[in-house]
């Protein structure tokens, strides 16, 4: 069987491996409670975690922030109104998973919630003061060559686009460091070409390009953090510094005084990606840029118009797309899912067609990502109208329909078990597969079931053991 040649395409059809975007919550959830406890020793992290909590959770925490005894669970439950009890359950789960609050018995046989003492102490410090200053806030002389916000913006933009340009392989930009390339490969955004060893962008890489800037940075940094420990840096230290950075003020300079060697290395990496600006490596001060600010917040639109990057895309109800841009990167990205018609010095015109969208879908980009990209870069003129939606609803729906039409069949690789001799055998095996989460389809009357490919080995072993124990002539014939 020509397995090797086909498997790559097969895989994409069977399990579209989409770019997985973790937010801070997903990231921290997977850490052990000991690690969390260690992280909560820093007010910055408590602040970041607090902001990531669901709305209701934030209210709960603030209500018991100044309470020293555990609060009965029933009392906490009574704070939310009846109609939203599901949300209450969800919020309680999140708070428990992040070890923000802990279960604690109350005299009288009730269980109550109490905030983790480390978390409580440090959140109070962040809110009300006290404790030690953060590591980067040593006093500084006034910078003789202070940089203003617009300089920092263009600097960070340029650095970050360098990474993106590298990914799409456009040659005109300067290269990026080997470290950055390794991170891209580690994150699965690029892969080494077998033929000549150069790196090429993957499917996830394209999806990555369509994310908004904030999400790109966060995703990239998360994968970077995965590798810091190999480089001999302390994860908690880096994470703390990252959050300190994210709570700093744009346009202000901060001191590198008292930073450990590891952190200085980390700072140089951040400098490369444009998260901080430093005039010289040994300058003793650095400026955080907009990329580093509020790195965790999933929605980062600034309030004031001047602070937001300008959108440039106009989509009309006749499926035409006008993009006011001269950036090759943006043109290339649009070209992923539009058919480009004309190009002028400052604008390109394209059209969304079934073919162009399908091309993108085949490449593994989802309709949601296409719509998200258009929405996020929509021209301010499109937002000013009376309509609530920035994009024409017909176009949005049509893109989704084009995607759905491809998904009329869903495939899952599996193994069919059939021709059981007795109902009992079938039930036993079905029960086993079901409890282990391998069962994907079954029919009692036909005594037929399908288990996932991954679970096949387990189920097979179980069946052999089972039939041996019953010493019956149950053979397994594999086709």
């Amino acid at each position: 069987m020509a397995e090797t040649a086909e498997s790559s395409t097969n895989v994409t059809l069977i399990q579209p491996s989409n770019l997985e975007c973790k937010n801070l919550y997903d990231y921290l959830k997977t850490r052990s409670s000991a690690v969390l406890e260690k992280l909560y020793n820093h007010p910055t992290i408590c602040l970041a975690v607090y902001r990531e909590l669901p709305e209701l959770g934030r209210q709960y925490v603030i209500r018991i922030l100044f309470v020293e005894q555990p609060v009965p669970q029933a009392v906490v439950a009574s704070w939310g109104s009846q109609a939203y009890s599901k949300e209450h359950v969800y919020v309680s789960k999140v708070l428990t998973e992040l070890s923000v609050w802990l279960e604690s018995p109350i005299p009288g046989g009730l269980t109550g919630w109490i905030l983790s003492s480390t978390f409580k102490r440090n959140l109070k410090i962040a809110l009300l003061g006290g404790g030690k200053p953060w590591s980067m806030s040593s006093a500084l002389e006034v910078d003789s060559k202070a940089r203003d916000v617009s300089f920092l913006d263009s600097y960070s933009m340029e650095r970050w686009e360098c990474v993106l340009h590298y990914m799409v392989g456009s040659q005109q930009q300067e290269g990026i460091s080997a470290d950055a390339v390794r991170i891209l490969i580690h994150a699965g955004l690029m892969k080494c070409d077998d033929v000549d060893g150069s790196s090429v962008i993957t499917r996830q890489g394209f999806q990555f390009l369509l994310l908004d800037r904030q999400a790109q940075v966060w995703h990239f940094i998360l994968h970077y953090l995965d590798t810091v420990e190999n480089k001999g840096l302390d994860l908690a230290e880096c994470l703390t510094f990252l959050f300190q950075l994210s709570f700093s003020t744009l346009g202000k300079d901060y001191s590198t005084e008292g930073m450990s060697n590891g952190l200085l290395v980390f700072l140089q990496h951040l400098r490369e990606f444009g998260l901080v600006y430093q005039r010289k490596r040994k300058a003793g001060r650095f400026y955080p840029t907009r990329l580093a600010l509020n790195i965790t917040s999933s929605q980062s639109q600034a309030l004031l118009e001047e602070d937001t990057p300008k959108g440039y895309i106009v989509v009309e109800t006749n499926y035409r797309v006008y993009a006011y841009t001269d950036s090759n990167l943006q043109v290339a990205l649009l070209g992923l899912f539009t058919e480009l018609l004309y190009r002028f010095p400052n604008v390109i015109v394209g059209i969304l067609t079934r073919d162009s969208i399908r091309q993108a879908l085949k490449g593994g980009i989802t309709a949601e990502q296409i719509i998200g990209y258009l929405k996020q870069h929509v021209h301010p003129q499109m937002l000013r109208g009376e309509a609530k939606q920035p994009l024409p609803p017909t176009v949005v729906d049509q893109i989704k329909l084009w995607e759905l039409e491809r998904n009329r069949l869903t495939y899952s690789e599996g193994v069919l078990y059939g021709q059981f001799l007795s109902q009992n055998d079938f039930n036993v095996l079905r029960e086993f597969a079901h409890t282990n989460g391998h069962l994907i389809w079954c029919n009692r009357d036909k005594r037929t079931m399908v288990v996932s490919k991954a679970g096949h080995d387990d189920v097979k072993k179980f069946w052999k053991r089972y039939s041996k124990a019953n010493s019956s002539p149950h053979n397994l014939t594999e086709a």
Partner: protein
Amino acid sequence: MMMDLEGSTEKSADFTNTDETSLLVIIMDSNPAQRILRENPHVLTQCVDSVIAFANAHLMQKAQNKLAVMACHSKLSEFIYPGPGKQLDVRQIDGQYEVFTLVEKTIKQNLAKILTSETSTVITESLLAGAIAMALCYIHRINRIKAPGLKLNSRILVVTGSGDSASQYMNYMNVFFTAQKQNVVIDVCALDQHLSLLQQGCDITSGMYLRVPQMQGLLQYLLWVFLPEPPIRQKLVLPPPVKVDYRAACFCHRELIDIGYVCSVCLSIFCKFSPICTTCHTVFKIPSLGVKPKKKKLKI
């Protein structure tokens, strides 16, 4: 084919946060003529501290939340955060978040300026209606310069220990209805007496009204009742609205009345009959025995 076009996006956003920015304008009554301040001036310090902590708690909710604080005095109302002029240059002195330190320092500094410039000893009431009007203008300005397509929830919180007085009745009603029109919620936290006029404002703009039973717990009351933004208030059990006293004040003596005379032209209210309407100068006939007086019953 499944025609569920919305489903996929809705599901993930089920319990997560709403992507809305919230602007809170706090109006703090700093008039030294308030009864609680006359009895014990230290209450002001406590009150300011609580308000600052509350303001910072609001900023802590979301990175994009915005804040403005005003001091309302007997003669003027002024923004004390963001203050006039250049921002203070604040470096961290302890573990507090830089932005919060900035808020605290700015508020205290500007408030001190206002209090020290106060010289007159004449007791006059706080110009709360004027302060609310200024807050509305501020909100309106922010709304105009905000990025297009962004949703901004604005609200005003009034923290005051002043007594109820009907002398600003007209101004109150004007700002309340303007706020209602602009979708601005007015919350009122009464420190001393029950304030029936401001309570009407809360009711009109669907805000919260709370009279704090004891000053020691001010911060907790603020955090419990006023911190949740209007969109999530429905998810929480908060003090239920009580019956609101909707009596109007007459235009001649500024007194709350149950029954009065209403000008048929401009709807001004008077407690006594007057032959010429003071607002629109319409001339009325003096009611004689034969003519039924222009008497209308108002809502009670």
